[in-house]
């Protein structure tokens, strides 16, 4: 209540002298009081009583349809507000006076949440773009987040055309004629760690992929050499732990060496082939295997 003197002396006769418009203005101002200021309920009740006795408001509602329209326009709560009509205090008189005030904090709260969400989205997008850009340039800006991208190794594009070298090494194994499937690069190792013996090969030829595999075994360990002839970019995921990928260049080709728990994976792309060697061998042995290809 803007004027505290009214409630202090509990003499409301001054309200009787005011016209209805002035009284309504007092009610309106009361409804807009900040949350931490209390209304003088006695004065409010007195004013409402004065207005009711004058009967001016009743005249407005002689027509039921018009009254319903005014109610809908001024007081009806939209379904989308998600609020029940009965979520008010038990004091009915207080309900009417504070209806608008009740709505204000909700709107403010919603705007606050919206602002938080927008700022969070902008920060997240900035960090994401920054991290991706930094990675593209070879920098690790934020190791903790970037690590998850390191858990899966994959070749995203196959764009460069490579020199198609001699294919004599293909005949070394003499199991599958790789040239027949368009593999003209050196892709097969001629050295593997001691004890591994050739145990078989697989060939799967389909329109999108031709997969050629050679298997080698030693006791309970296995090495799998894969050559996948691509007709569309590879989407393969290669599992790895969070250790760094070692880039080892041989035969003018970059080979990527990584660990997946106890296993070591070698992956590279040459020509239209995606190749990998997977098995239980060390990083140094991986480099020797790569050197033996060329």
């Amino acid at each position, binding site marked *: 209540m803007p004027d505290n003197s009214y409630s202090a002396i509990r003499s409301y006769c001054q309200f009787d002298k005011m016209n209805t418009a002035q009284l309504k203005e007092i009610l309106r101002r009361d409804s807009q009081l900040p949350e931490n200021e209390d209304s003088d309920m006695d004065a409010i009740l007195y004013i409402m009583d004065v207005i009711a006795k004058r009967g001016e408001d009743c005249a407005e509602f002689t027509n039921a349809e018009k009254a319903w329209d005014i109610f809908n326009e001024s007081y009806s709560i939209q379904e989308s507000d998600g609020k029940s009509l009965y979520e008010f205090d038990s004091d009915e008189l207080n309900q009417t006076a504070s209806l608008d005030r009740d709505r204000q904090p909700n709107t403010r709260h919603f705007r*606050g949440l919206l602002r*938080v969400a927008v700022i969070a989205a902008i920060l997240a997008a900035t*960090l994401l773009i920054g991290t991706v850009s930094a990675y593209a340039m070879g920098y690790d800006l934020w190791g903790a987040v970037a690590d*998850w991208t390191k858990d899966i190794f994959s070749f995203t594009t196959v764009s460069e055309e490579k020199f198609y070298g001699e294919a004599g090494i293909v005949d070394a194994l003499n199991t599958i004629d790789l040239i027949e499937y368009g593999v003209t690069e050196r892709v097969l190792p001629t050295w593997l760690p001691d004890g591994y013996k050739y145990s078989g090969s697989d060939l*799967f030829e389909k329109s999108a992929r031709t*997969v050629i*595999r050679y298997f080698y075994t030693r006791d309970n360990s296995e090495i799998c050499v894969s050559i996948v002839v691509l007709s569309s970019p590879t*989407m393969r995921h290669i599992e790895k732990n969070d250790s760094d990928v070692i880039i080892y260049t041989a035969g003018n080709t970059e080979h990527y060496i990584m660990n997946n*728990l106890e296993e070591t994976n070698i992956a590279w792309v040459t020509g239209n082939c995606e190749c990998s060697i*997977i098995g239980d061998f060390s990083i140094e042995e991986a480099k020797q295997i790569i050197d033996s290809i060329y």
Partner: protein
Amino acid sequence: MKNTRRTVCIALILVFALGMGTTASAALTASQHLASYEAQVWGIGSGDICIWYDVVGTGTMDQIGATEIVLQQKVAGSTVWANVKTFDLVSYPNMLGTNRMAYTHTEYYYSGIAGYSYRAYVMIYAGKGGSGSYRQFTTNVAVAT
């Protein structure tokens, strides 16, 4: 000013919480059973779609392949993907190979509609000795021709 500071604090907390979530999920990746995997869909004419996947284990696995494939379809110009077909082990037991280090080129076909887009979620699996690893792989998007 006070409100702005509070808003920025809450936003930063949200961002770092997101980062912690992704870091936590990172710890789940390197696999004892799976070495590499890929899945693709492509159109083979007459509206038909082909689904293909290739899984390599870390050694000979009791079971290796895929346990479920959900094929989705999208009308040209739309942004809504709808599931149109699910392949599971009950109806397609050959989705998994046994006693192999790699399982390749198990293909499934679907009679689609020319001009519609298709993609698939493939649940990759490899297991041995009572334990196994799953990975969900989302294929490329192919337009049926």
